């Protein structure tokens, strides 16, 4: 989509019926993602972060407010006009399809303009990008949880999506792969819009242009933090630490201020 794709969410209300009662999950959430922007959403477990992503993907409808996919000039777009890549909290691979086919199923309309050889190349490239080149013929139950999650990422990226929705996508990866995938996502910054739900402050600060902090359920946005550090970001820099601290404070979990220690006296 030329000019990029953004997301505008205004005063969204979403409740689920739970038993005889009604569980209010999102209570007037507003946030936006400009074209090409990387946005993270942090908040306590059960705050409704996943619900938010599902509303954006069109898998659920809000009871109030609006969720809109927009183009560069803020005109509303139909969901079918854009290519969406989504990584669920669990890999959600089809158990009967090889990793190759699982990734291929992510191609969407991009497949139509491709020859068979081009399709195969695109899928192999996506697998390779996620470090899965030797495993294309494996079935999901034959690989580890981390590998399955990386295959789900490959499936989300293979169509070169306009909008990427990530629901704690790196939770099951080991440290090495986690850092590698973070760098992969960092390398795409500015080129596609991405909204990521995460529990990791480090990850959010490393990747995001903007971070939204949600309150406890029923969720509303309690803070919006711009991260304007140059990329790739240096985790050991003072700016990075400052950002992390701001996020922590917004989450209401700021570390205790350090007590002043005894002064060192140098004598002699």
């Amino acid at each position, binding site marked *: 989509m030329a000019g990029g794709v953004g997301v505008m969410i205004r005063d969204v209300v979403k409740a689920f019926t739970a038993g005889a009662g009604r569980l209010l999950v999102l209570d007037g959430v507003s946030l936006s993602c400009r074209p090409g922007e990387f946005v993270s959403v942090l908040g306590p477990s059960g705050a409704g972060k996943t619900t938010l992503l599902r509303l954006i993907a069109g898998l659920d409808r809000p009871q109030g407010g609006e969720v809109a996919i927009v183009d560069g000039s803020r005109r509303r777009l139909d969901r079918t006009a854009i290519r*969406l890549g989504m990584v669920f909290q669990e890999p959600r691979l*089809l158990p*009967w399809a090889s990793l190759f086919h699982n990734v291929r*199923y992510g191609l969407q309309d991009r497949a139509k303009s491709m020859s068979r050889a081009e399709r195969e190349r695109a899928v192999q490239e996506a697998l390779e990008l996620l470090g899965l080149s030797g495993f294309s013929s494996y079935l999901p139950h034959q690989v580890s949880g981390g590998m399955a999650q990386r295959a789900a990422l490959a499936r989300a990226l293979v169509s070169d999506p306009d909008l990427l929705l990530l629901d704690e996508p790196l939770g099951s990866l080991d440290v090495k792969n986690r850092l590698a995938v973070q760098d992969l996502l960092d390398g795409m910054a500015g080129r596609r819009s991405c909204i990521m739900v995460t529990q990791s402050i480090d990850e959010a600060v490393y990747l995001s242009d903007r971070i939204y902090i949600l309150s406890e359920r029923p969720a509303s946005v309690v803070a919006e933090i711009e991260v304007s550090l140059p990329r790739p970001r240096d985790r050991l820099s003072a700016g990075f630490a400052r950002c992390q601290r701001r996020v922590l404070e917004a989450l209401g979990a700021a570390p205790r201020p350090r007590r002043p220690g005894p002064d060192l006296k140098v004598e002699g």
Partner: protein
Amino acid sequence: MNRALLPKPLGLLVPVVILFLWQGLSSRGALEPSMIPSPGTVLAAATRALRTGELARHVEISLIRVARGFLAASAAGIPAGLALGWIPSLRALLGPLLHFLRQIPPVAWIPLFIAWFGIGEGSKISVVAYAAFFPVLLNTEAAAALVSESYLELGEVYRFSRREVLTRIIVPGSLGPMFTGLRLALSNSWRALVAAEMLASASGLGYMIVLSRELVRPDVMFLGIAVMGLLGYAMDAAAVRLQKAVAPWT
């Protein structure tokens, strides 16, 4: 689900012990031969029937009937089950009728089927097909209806066409229970066939048993029963193998 075509050695222990006890009791005259012939006599009947080709003839006829009825039932039951599972309104429309029909024992239809399709192969194959149809249909239907919502959502996110939803999600997602249905259907067909052959036939394993009763040949009767069990066992084991080859994730 990991059973080879032949039973594991441990599983053979009990049958072998029973055979020895049976033979032992027979040799000591503890069993009345006209009621329970000795294993040796049954074995002798088997070699005789094999030599004359009579056993092979009955087995062949029975197997062909089972195959025709079972295949017809599967060819109808699988697509019908997928359609019913996938389309809730169709399920609402036809569900009650199907659940009514499935309660009727296949054997109860035999007199009517004979009237409708004649005393020949038609009536017997129809009974087999009737017996096999419902397990295939109902298991496939339940599986297709219960294909995980999360996979359907995946199809929505990645814009699967209706055909792709069917071929990529519903059909492969239903294969496990579908195979369970096919295995149930196989043993149901076998039972229904024997009943049909005992009631109205001049060939097949069921007929062989009826005839041996009239001729007072308990050894042949036992032979027929043993062959039925063995064939049923082999067919089921083959179905399990097929499932492992076709749907290894189930």
